[in-house]
């Protein structure tokens, strides 16, 4: 008889389950709700915060800050791992230096991603990575600064698909920075060098476009064991200079493509043919 009662759910264990289960369920729900901030949140600028720095200050580690269209006058310091990206690309979200004697954005934490923004107007640097590891700078524009992108004592970072044109000295500057990947960037028409690698070892520098810079397309200075492949350094005063450096692997870099030679020769040939044709035509007319 007892066994039958137990089966019907009137035993002491089943009573406990009946009374406490809804409470336990509520506790689990509360815990889940309270743990939401621990997961990555998305903060929108200017919807949630008017400036990017306010959003950075309010964000927790690993949050994503989406910067909307507009020009923001500020100097940003990122002291925690965040993802900062634009909603519509670098042409639409521009960060202009408020203080010109400071970098537009300073990355001061490991594991930061900055993507699709435009940084301009600094007499120091557009983007600065200082003592940082494993950060990514992707598809940004750093133009009209003293230096476009600066890496100082920063290791293992990825700098890719950025544009660092028309800066007053260097497009990309690396100092005491090792094992970084610098790929598919454009550093054209800078007033000094496209890429300057100084006292930096073990970096991979590939598929960059470094044209029309006032001095060197790329300068390696006291930098060893770097891999430099498939870069284009056209119409600089000096294409690529490697000095006081050793054990760098170079392949597939171009400073004077064949077309620079083929096109003028072809045009001179056409000029000669054009002269002969004109001569015969005029001879035919004035005979």
């Amino acid at each position, binding site marked *: 008889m007892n066994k039958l009662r137990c089966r019907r759910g009137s035993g002491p264990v089943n009573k406990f389950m009946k009374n406490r289960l809804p409470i336990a369920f509520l506790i689990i729900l509360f815990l889940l709700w309270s743990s939401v901030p621990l997961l990555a949140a998305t903060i929108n600028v200017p919807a949630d915060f008017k400036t990017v720095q306010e959003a950075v200050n309010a964000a927790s580690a690993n949050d994503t800050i989406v910067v909307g269209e507009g020009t923001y006058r500020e100097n940003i310091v990122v002291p925690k791992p965040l993802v900062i990206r634009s909603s519509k690309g670098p042409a639409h979200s521009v960060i202009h230096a408020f203080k010109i004697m400071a970098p537009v954005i300073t990355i001061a934490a490991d594991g930061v991603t900055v993507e699709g923004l435009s940084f301009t107007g600094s007499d120091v640097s557009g983007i600065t990575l200082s003592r940082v590891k494993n950060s990514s700078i992707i598809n940004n524009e750093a133009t009209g600064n003293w230096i476009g992108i600066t890496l100082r004592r920063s290791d293992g970072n990825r700098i890719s698909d950025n544009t660092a044109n028309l800066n007053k000295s260097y497009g990309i500057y690396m100092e005491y920075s090792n094992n970084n990947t610098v790929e598919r960037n454009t550093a054209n028409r800078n007033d000094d060098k496209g890429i300057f690698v100084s006292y930096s070892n073990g970096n991979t520098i590939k598929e960059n476009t470094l044209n*029309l810079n006032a001095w060197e397309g790329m300068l390696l200075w006291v930098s060893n064991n770097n891999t430099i492949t498939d870069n284009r350094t056209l119409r600089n005063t000096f294409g690529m200079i490697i000095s006081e450096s050793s054990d760098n692997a170079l392949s597939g870099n171009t400073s004077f493509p064949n*077309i620079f030679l083929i096109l*003028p020769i072809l*045009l*001179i040939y*056409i000029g*000669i043919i054009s*002269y002969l044709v*004109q*001569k015969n035509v005029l001879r035919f007319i004035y005979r």
Partner: protein
Amino acid sequence: MSEFFSLFTSIQTVIASIGLILATSSFISGLQLVKGASFIEGRIHRINGFSSITLYTALAVLAFATEGLRIWSDLAWITGFLVILLKISIVRKRRRRSFKYVSWIGGTLLLMWLFLVYIHIPV
């Protein structure tokens, strides 16, 4: 091949290329004229020469329009114009002492066009 044809998507490259072709024709006919060739050579020299000067002016105007006033660039364009004017004045005045160097100035103009093509290849 498509890379080659993509060079000519820039109007400046097209103008500079036509300019070099005309300058080459003008230079060859000019050399024939110095040797004392016929009236036909004179026609070719003049037509091609003045056409290339027109294209040079167009390139200079486009450079000012796209890049604005830049001191070294402007000085280079002005120097080019001065070389052209010097060449025309020597040919017009026909002074014996200067005329014997006219082919060298023609050569300078050809080199100038080679440089113009080089700097206008899109990169």
